[in-house]
């Protein structure tokens, strides 16, 4: 294996809501606002998957969103890392027996980082982003 080459640009994230309850959304937004302020490290939410290095997925993937999730996943340029925020994305969580789910997320796309919690605290989300960045560095290093 090659040595890791440091991830040499700011990490930008795109957020995809696949049918969540909004709890995780507001904690993600809370995580980027001044109390935690990860923007000082260049981490921010962007409006297009084409600009993103990290895809943050919340929600249990309802049937309508499955194909869209796939399409958005394919639009994120390589190397990319997927982070699943909240238990309903990792296992179905409180919605485990719903008739309208195609999830959890890892049934649809490969997931690299799971952040458990319903919803996770902003600190946990930021920790997840740090782990995602480590993975991105590794992927970048392998490509180089």
């Amino acid at each position: 294996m090659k040595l890791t080459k440091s991830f040499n640009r700011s990490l930008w994230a795109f957020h995809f809501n696949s049918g969540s309850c909004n709890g995780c959304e507001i904690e993600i937004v809370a995580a980027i606002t001044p109390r935690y302020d990860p923007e000082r490290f260049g981490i921010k939410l962007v409006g297009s998957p084409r600009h993103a290095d990290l895809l943050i997925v919340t929600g249990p993937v309802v049937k309508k969103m499955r194909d869209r999730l796939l399409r958005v996943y394919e639009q994120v340029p390589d190397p990319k890392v997927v982070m699943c925020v909240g238990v309903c994305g990792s296992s179905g969580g409180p919605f485990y027996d719903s008739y309208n789910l195609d999830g959890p997320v890892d049934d649809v796309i490969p997931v690299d980082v799971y952040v458990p919690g319903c919803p996770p605290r902003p600190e946990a989300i930021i920790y997840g982003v740090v782990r995602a960045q480590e993975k991105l560095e590794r992927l970048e290093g392998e490509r180089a």
Partner: protein
Amino acid sequence: MSDGNPAKTTPYTVPIGPIHPALKEPVMFTFRMNGEQIEKADFAPGQTHRGIEWMGMRRNPIQIVHLTDRICGICGVSHSLAFARAVEQIMEIDVPERADYIRAIIAEFERIQSHLLWAGMAAHELGFDTLLHLTWRVREQAMDTIELLTGNRVNYGIIQIGGVRRDITPDQHPAIHECLDYYRDLQGKLLRIFLEDATIQMRCRDCGILTRDDALRLCTVGPTARASGVNMDVRVDFPYAAYGDLDIEPILPDRYLGETRGDVFDRIVVRLLEVEQSAGIIRQCLDVMPAGDILWETKIPKILAAFKKAHGEAVGRHEAPRGEVLHYVRMDGKEHPTAWKVKASSYSNLMSWIPMLEGEQIADIPIIVASIDPCLSCTDRVAVVRGGRRSIMTKEELHRLSVEKTRRLMR
């Protein structure tokens, strides 16, 4: 071409969504545009339908309370409260008075954080990101207090059938008062920033107007209706929990501005003033809160046994931050309800998008859409509205349509 003009004025269609950067939730808009102006607006919710009611009918009410928290992460306590009220009415439970006060306190804290959250999102839609960051920073104070009282920042899980799970202890009072004082000192500053700023005035005044008649005709609820001059508030009209003992007056924009226009600006005014009102309500609650129990029954097996004896139907209502939520529950002597229907506040409000949007500029779409504080995860029942005709669709139909649409998009 001999005649270029008709081609120039031919309306074109702009589809937006369901994944779009403006709202955090998926919804699909179709706008028929004429130049910069919106001729016709249409939207398709239902992208986050999780079948909550169906799941609820397979669980018992104690479990459902946690599911109602997750109908919407922003108004968690509102749905639980309305649901618990419905079940308590069926079972004829007398909720201890102290629990009623604690419910009101948490519900008002929720209103504070939700309105600040909305104010931040509104500023973001206007492109005023500094203000987004400011409001979200001050919102953290309310989040801290909610966490102190309930143990959670979001999805509090404090409501239990017949009461609340946690008491408010005397040593928590200083922290609550500190938080309320913080917002009292801040209120003037927030009002000044939002209401006197020239940019916000220019963008929001006379933009996205919903007339009083339209608000009534479309059954709009909550701050959206009040901003159009409809004097309604479930807390006042049909008091429940501790609200009957408290002094509350619905907030209408003409009290502050001297007139009601029903535009985006009025909606900002109503919500900001409600932050102050909620702080006042919490103060009243803390002053008059009686001592006593917080639960009707502490032993869960006993509550479960009581469900098996419950027969009847009831409606529970609550004034959530976005307006009235209504839960209809029917119990037929089983542990789980035989029918459960949720009407979320945004469900009533979404239709008001159409009169607000039509005739407006394309650049005003984000702020108008955000101005009713839509919450789609609450709303997603399966109603499709097109050109005023409403049809309820089955899951199969929806699935077929979504497959067709994806195919169409992939072509």
